[in-house]
């Protein structure tokens, strides 16, 4: 009955099948096979990535929970912890942008509140094909309104994120969603089923035939069901999730339950077996008690359904009525569907018959790991010799072009659709280098950012990943927050292609090196492989979410210029690095060359220097240099200043003018300070081994950069601002 074609439909190899038979001591039935197929899938089992992910540093004094749970947990003092995680929802968002993105938000929120934390912020990292194509626009509109539709309704602010555009995402947009939660340290809950005799409760939405893997089963048992159109994309119900959130937090706050797990990928299968395995227990489940939305569902369908807004809980028998009362208050049912038992087996019955009887350890912990063949990543297209690259006649026009490129342009069109202020904690609204959230009742604040430049990673995965980590941490340091932990989402192509595995291996190596140097633990993440459609692979795209802590929110620094007459200091050194830059891409149409080099030790010194100077109150503004280099960073600081102050900057050195203005050399930041403080700042920099130079002054109505007293470019702030501001909305204007 289980032959090669059944295995193929379940994405299992014959070797894997033999291993299953050996582990469970019998031939699995179809339902049991279904369980293994989802639990041993790439998504749940991390088959191809596990051997590499081991390289990441996961320990540190603040780590309460590292990888392995629904989300990472870090101690932030005063009895509080932060809980955070990032997830991808790439494929669903391509098929149904609104619902795909919406349910992505729903899923990551559950990962956070299932641990007992109240979600306090969402960030989203989005990548689309260029917006001049209506198809890409419509995906983007759907994704953005889906994120808005879910997050706004449930009342968690979406406080930041990133949006990149590149043709490689045309058929494979990326939607990565990050969520941060806050909890009391002694109120953290784990996904553990403990205590034989404890009851297993099901709460939330009813189970339907949503998103079942292997739905095209050709076996007799499923044949009569094949006329059902089984959607792979679920519809989100943020209202139900809001009720679920409040009810779950209430039972956890009152310590009415023993353990809890959300039903995400692989639904009931994953939640039951994982909870049992983590508790070292077994579990009995009566599938007839599972609330069902559709008639005639089979055990296979019930177990593999990915219906949204569902949770599994374990409670002592005495507490069951109290738990059910809380859920009833929120208009939710919480039926008992099973029991925790000794013995380590998952046993499920359906209409009185045992339909599943397997050891949970085999399902959860013994998925094989593959060290897949690795080939060197595809080499970058060679950059033209600089001598062959014409210098633009008008560097001011070049700046406008770069500012208007959708990747750099203002993203307000996106984030004003997100409620970014609900919960009244958002101190830096979207637009700053990092989102800044106060912690009510304390002077402390949390800073959060998502970062990842996939063009760099395409050109050199290891350097690209190091830069992603460096830039993310730098984005926190410029605000005055010390990075305390990382989560990451690794979006790659097909891992069976050796060069994709090569990219993956290199990127993980680079990320590990950077995190180790910066001393920040990786507390979790997500791997999304198979991001290729019609032979087109995406750029390897690691996205890092970093959380930072500020002891005194009063000291936080924002990117906008503060006052005319302030001195402008450039921290870091500029090299002739044009490879992989936004300038090369938008002005010369080239995605080529090597990305900028990065010295991780220098980066670390630079960030320490920033934290020190911000702590002593010497900086009035700080903004890191990323895409678009120095000229763009100065322009953005002008745009973010309340009165749109310009600047007069005079540089020196021998670099080509475009490399000087638009090069993306790393570990650079523009800061401003009172005139009287500049000398001290420069002295401290040299003591700390950080290059720094006074380059000009805030003031005037122009963004002016020159060398040796001669203008290289001079553009009115207002004009540059309009280009930057209007670029994205212009794509979406419907002719009346």
């Amino acid at each position, binding site marked *: 009955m289980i032959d090669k074609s059944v295995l193929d439909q379940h994405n299992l190899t014959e070797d894997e099948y033999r291993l299953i038979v050996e582990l469970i001591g019998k031939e699995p039935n179809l339902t049991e096979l279904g369980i293994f197929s989802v639990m041993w899938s790439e998504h749940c089992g991390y088959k191809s990535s596990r051997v590499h992910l081991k390289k990441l540093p996961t320990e540190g004094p603040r780590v309460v929970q590292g990888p392995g749970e629904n989300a990472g947990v870090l101690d932030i003092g005063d009895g509080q912890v932060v809980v955070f995680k990032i997830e991808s929802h790439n494929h669903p968002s391509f098929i*149904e942008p609104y619902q795909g993105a919406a349910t992505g938000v729903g899923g990551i929120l559950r990962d956070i509140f299932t641990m007992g934390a109240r979600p306090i912020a969402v960030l989203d990292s989005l990548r689309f094909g260029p917006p001049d194509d209506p198809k890409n626009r419509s995906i983007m509109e759907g994704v953005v309104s889906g994120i808005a539709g879910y997050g706004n309704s449930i009342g968690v602010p979406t406080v930041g994120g990133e949006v990149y555009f590149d043709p490689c995402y045309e058929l494979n947009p990326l939607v990565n969603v990050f969520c941060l939660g806050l909890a009391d340290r002694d109120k953290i809950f784990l996904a553990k089923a403990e205590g034989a005799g404890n009851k297993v409760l099901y709460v939330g939405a009813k189970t*339907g035939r949503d998103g079942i893997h292997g739905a095209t089963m050709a076996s007799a048992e499923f044949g009569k069901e094949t006329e059902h159109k089984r*959607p*792979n994309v679920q519809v*989100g119900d943020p*209202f139900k999730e809001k009720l679920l959130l409040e009810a779950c937090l209430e039972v956890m706050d009152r310590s009415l339950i023993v353990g809890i797990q959300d039903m995400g990928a692989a639904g009931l299968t994953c939640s039951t077996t994982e909870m049992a395995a983590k508790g070292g227990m077994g579990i009995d489940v009566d599938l007839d008690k599972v609330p069902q939305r559709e008639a005639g569902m089979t055990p296979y369908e019930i177990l593999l359904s990915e219906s949204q807004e569902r949770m599994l809980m374990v409670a002592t028998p005495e507490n069951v009525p109290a738990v059910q009362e809380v859920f009833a208050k929120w208009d939710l049912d919480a039926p008992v569907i099973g029991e925790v038992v000794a013995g380590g087996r998952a046993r499920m019955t359906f209409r009185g018959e045992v339909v599943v009887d397997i050891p949970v350890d085999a399902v959860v912990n013994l998925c094989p790991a593959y060290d897949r063949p690795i080939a060197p990543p595809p080499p970058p297209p060679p950059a033209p010799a600089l001598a062959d690259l014409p210098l633009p006649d008008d560097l001011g026009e070049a700046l406008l072009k770069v500012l208007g490129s959708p990747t750099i342009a203002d993203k307000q069109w996106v984030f004003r659709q997100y409620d970014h202020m609900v919960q009244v904690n958002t101190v830096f609204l979207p637009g700053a280098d990092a989102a800044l959230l106060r912690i009510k009742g304390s002077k402390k604040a949390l800073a959060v950012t998502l970062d990842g430049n996939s063009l760099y990673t395409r050109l050199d995965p290891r350097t690209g990943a190091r830069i992603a980590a460096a830039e993310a941490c730098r984005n926190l340091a410029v605000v005055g927050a010390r990075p305390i932990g990382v989560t990451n989402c690794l979006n790659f192509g097909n891992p069976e292609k050796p060069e994709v595995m090569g990219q993956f291996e290199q990127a993980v190596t680079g990320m590990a090196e950077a995190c180790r140097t910066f001393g920040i633990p990786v507390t979790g993440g997500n791997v999304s492989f198979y991001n290729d459609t019609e032979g087109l692979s995406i750029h390897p795209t690691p996205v890092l979410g970093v959380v930072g802590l500020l002891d005194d929110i009063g000291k936080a620094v924002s990117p906008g210029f503060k006052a005319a007459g302030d001195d402008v200091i450039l921290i870091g050194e500029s090299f002739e690095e044009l490879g992989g830059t936004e300038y090369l891409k938008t002005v010369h149409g080239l995605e080529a060359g090597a990305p900028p080099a990065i010295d991780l030790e220098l980066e670390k010194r630079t960030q320490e220097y920033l934290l020190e100077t911000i702590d002593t109150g010497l900086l009035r503004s700080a903004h890191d240099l990323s895409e678009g280099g120095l000229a763009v960073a100065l322009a953005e600081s002008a745009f973010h200043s309340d009165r749109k102050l310009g600047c007069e900057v005079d540089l020196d050195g021998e670099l080509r003018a475009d490399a000087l203005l638009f090069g993306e050399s790393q570990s650079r930041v523009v800061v401003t300070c009172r005139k009287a403080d500049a000398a001290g700042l420069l002295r401290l920099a040299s003591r700390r081994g950080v290059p720094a130079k006074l380059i000009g002054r805030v003031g005037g109505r122009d963004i002016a950069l020159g060398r040796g007293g001669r203008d290289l470019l001079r553009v009115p702030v207002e004009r540059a601002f309009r280009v930057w501001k209007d670029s994205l909305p212009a794509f979406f204007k419907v002719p009346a």
Partner: protein
Amino acid sequence: MRVRILVSFKDSVLDPQGQTVKNALHTMGYDAVKDVRQGKVFEIDLAGATKKEAERLVPEIARRVLANPIIEKFEWDFLKGE
């Protein structure tokens, strides 16, 4: 020529809106209500188009623009009296 197109979730797809309305109606005492499905309706004026053109155009528009066939179905008809 005026047509009416109804777009709704496929029966197997969760319809949170319909469910919420149903629950509200129950709370209000309308127990006769056994189920509610909520969808969208579009009335399109195709003045000038022939019946034949409409029969070609409308399903195409519905499929391409008004509904996502992965989760939604549609039906349509000519509006009476025209």
